[in-house]
């Protein structure tokens, strides 16, 4: 008993004064002291409800879902306008009605729509059955979307891994060429280093990024007019720009 009263008392305090009113009348309205609160009451309420539905409730739910479907059919009927072949249409047209327009300039062209409410959900809150159906549908979509995502994710990852590998390979190739061009004597040694590095690829992989590759490719181009993917050193900067299709491997 006492508990219930607390909840009731608390509830009135859950009301908010109007914002606009508040700015007009500075003294904020006095509301009974907070004690409990509707949220507590609500959660208590939901706890009391059994989770498992018996067959009667299930049947009721089924009926309600059927009703929503029927309502949707009714509402679909509201979409189709009265056809021009209708005698009423013709008669109104004889009076000077312009099809597609409203009357008297300000009149509405379409009839007032209707909304079918079959629950006691408050304003701003969705009908629980419709909400349920919508959520179920959303969940279905979400599930499908996630599956699709998973699939494309998998494809992406495969591609990504391959791409990363190419970056590393190309980087080392470029590094080799650069070293060669800068100092031909180190070639053999570097090659060995290269191999060693390839073995330890897994740990090093993260270190070499696309930017690193880009940087080294640009260095080769700028300092030696060399394109790794054309595999040759151009005679001049102009020749490089003219004949080489582009900087990246994909361009070739």
């Amino acid at each position, binding site marked *: 008993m006492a508990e219930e009263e607390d909840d009731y008392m608390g509830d009135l305090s859950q009301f908010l004064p109007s914002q606009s009113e508040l700015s007009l009348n500075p003294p904020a309205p006095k509301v009974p002291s907070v004690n409990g609160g509707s949220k507590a009451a609500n959660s208590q309420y939901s706890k009391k409800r059994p989770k498992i539905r018996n067959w009667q409730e299930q049947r009721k739910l089924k009926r309600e879902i059927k009703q929503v479907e029927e309502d949707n059919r009714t509402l679909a*009927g509201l979409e189709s306008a009265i056809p021009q072949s209708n005698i009423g249409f013709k*008669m109104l047209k004889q009076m000077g009605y312009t099809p597609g327009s*409203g009357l*008297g300039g300000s009149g509405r062209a379409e009839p007032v729509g209707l909304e079918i409410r079959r629950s006691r959900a*408050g304003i701003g809150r969705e009908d629980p059955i419709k909400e349920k159906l919508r959520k179920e549908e959303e969940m279905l979509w979400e599930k499908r979307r996630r599956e699709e995502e998973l699939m494309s994710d998998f494809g992406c990852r495969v591609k990504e891994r391959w791409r990363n590998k190419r970056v590393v390979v190309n980087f080392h190739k470029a590094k080799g060429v650069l070293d060669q061009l800068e100092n031909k004597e180190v070639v053999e040694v570097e090659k060995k280093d290269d191999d060693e590095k390839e073995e330890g690829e897994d740990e090093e992989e993260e270190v070499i990024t696309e930017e690193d590759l880009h940087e080294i490719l640009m260095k080769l181009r700028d300092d030696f007019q060399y394109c790794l993917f054309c595999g040759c050193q151009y005679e001049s900067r102009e020749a490089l720009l003219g004949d080489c299709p582009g900087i990246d491997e994909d361009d070739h």
Partner: protein
Amino acid sequence: MGTERKRKVSLFDVVDEATATAKVNKANGGGAVHGINTTTTGGMPLVNRWNGRPYSQRYYDILEKRKTLPVWHQKEEFLKALKDNQTLILVGETGSGKTTQIPQFVLEAVDVESADRRKKFMVGCTQPRRVAAMSVSRRVAEEMDVTIGEEVDGMLLREAMTDPLLERYKVIILDEAHERTLATDVLFGLLKEVLKNRPDLKLVVMSATLEAEKFQGYFFGAPLMKVPGRLHPVEIFYTQEPERDYLEAAIRTVVQIHMCEPPGDILVFLTGEEEIEDACRKITKEVANMGDQVGPVKVVPLYSTLPPAMQQKIFEPAPSPTTEGGPAGRKIVISTNIAETSLTIDGIVYVIDPGFAKQKVYNPRVRVESLLVSPISKASAHQRSGRAGRTQPGKCFRLYTERSFNNDLQPQTYPEILRSNLANTVLTLKKLGIDDLVHFDFMDPPAPETLMRALEVLNYLGALDDEGNLTKLGEIMSEFPLDPQMGKMLVVSSEFNCSNEILSISAMLSVPNCFVRPREAQKAADEAKARFGHIDGDHLTLLNVYHAYKQNNEDQSWCYENFVNHRALKSADNVRQQLARIMARFNLKLCSTDFNSRDYYINIRKAMLAGYFMQVAHLERTGHYLTVKDNQVVHLHPSNCLDHKPEWVIYNEYVLTSRNFIRTVTDVRGEWIVDIAPHYYDLENFPQCEAKRVLEKLYKKREKDKEESRNRR
């Protein structure tokens, strides 16, 4: 539904009372009476100029109170404005006294002005609703110390049919214009025309503040006069979250207020009878459970179908404390939106507004006209909260968030003309000589498709020809203040040799549901109803009830014992008499088929089909009904008396309540359909469906039968 029927009845009632009691403005406004009263200027008149009798003490007592009303301070200003202008818009919040005082000011002014004292004149004051018209006229009569008639705005419209320039009237006052009933809107358009042709006619439009500028713009920029209301400030509260169940929330809030807030009565707005009765029971129980820690409560329901005596309960005072010095008692009124504008209850300090009301909707595309629970408008919410500030500063608890108020509520309620079937209105306009509906000056023009449907119905019924001209049949139909389908059914009923029976059925359909089903005696009530039941249809069941009522000498206790509403039957009888008078006026024969003939009921059903052939549903093989041509899935209303599921039924209404129902249904035969309404059941113009295939067969059979009979000859 209920209100729709009520509206029709009220028209009749007014006709009746207008002729029976005679309006004082008319009867006593004549020359002889005028002669008596010559002592008005200066001093207090001692003799009532309206009936020549001395004023009673009560008159003077009331007069003192009247003078404190805000509108009295502007009496001179009003009279001057009335003198200088043809049209005047008067804006005043509830409590300004405009409804009761303005008609009297006008009457006085016009009387003094009236040059020819022998000429009769009338001041017409219309109210959108019958209850209001009654209580206003009663009040005004009391204040003037006379008896008086009343007028609903639909009534004035009918008067215009015989008196197009409304020449009986000198001043017309349209009260509660902001409510924008269908009749008000049609009157607006009509009066605009009349005013152009009658410079001596004056019009006063009275409204709550809402939309006053719109009226002004519509009525040639007429001057606007404002009367302050007597309203105390009302604090408004919103919920933090949208409510899961507004009924539960309303009950919770009532109990909280009763426990925590200072004395003052509570007004709760709910949507309908069932919900209201439910809430009354629950609140009474909740408060009883709390014992004597809280004050006693009187929970009073209020809705239009409640018997008048029960409605009066809302004016009773709150109960006094159970023990001396104990917690104060409280009156809790649970009402539909009648309490929003038309009825004023003093002493209300707290208003609970869940934000819903049952509102009429009509959609011409699927031809459904029904009362649906819909969110109210911001303007309505404002009206509701104002009800808390009538006697002292009050509080309004809105059971929705402020965000919802701002985003989910539309600014104004759609005027009724945008939410109604206009078949009857179009017929009336045609009768009034308004042929061009497209250019008629509606304040808010209806959707074109609504007019198309109206024209279509009237054309198929034969009231309008293909050019849209009123036919002879249409002329007669327009004289019946009924839906055109019913009018048609009545007019042709003589041809089917059953006009007596069709008259009774029409009358029964025009009054509120006559079956009573009290919660505590549902089984007995159902058994009683079953005794009247006719297996072929609800229309025939209604006929049985009417016959039984007459056979039992209209006895009230018989009604009580048989669970039928005496008031409803009495008014049906009244309606029937008036319809019979109209029938007689047009020489429509009153006749009946021999009751022992097997054609007795068949003829009745055929006559009904002749009016209602556009309201037919067909039973599909899947077991559900589809409305003809629109193919809407509908179900027979559980109140039906049929013992089978007929293949074809006519229905009186298609409503969306807990399901899509057709209500008041009667079995008809496919053969009759193709015989009586082949122009509507024209298969060239029929959507592909099961019903069409059945009809094809019926037409073929009909051809074959004709051929055979020709060969035989």
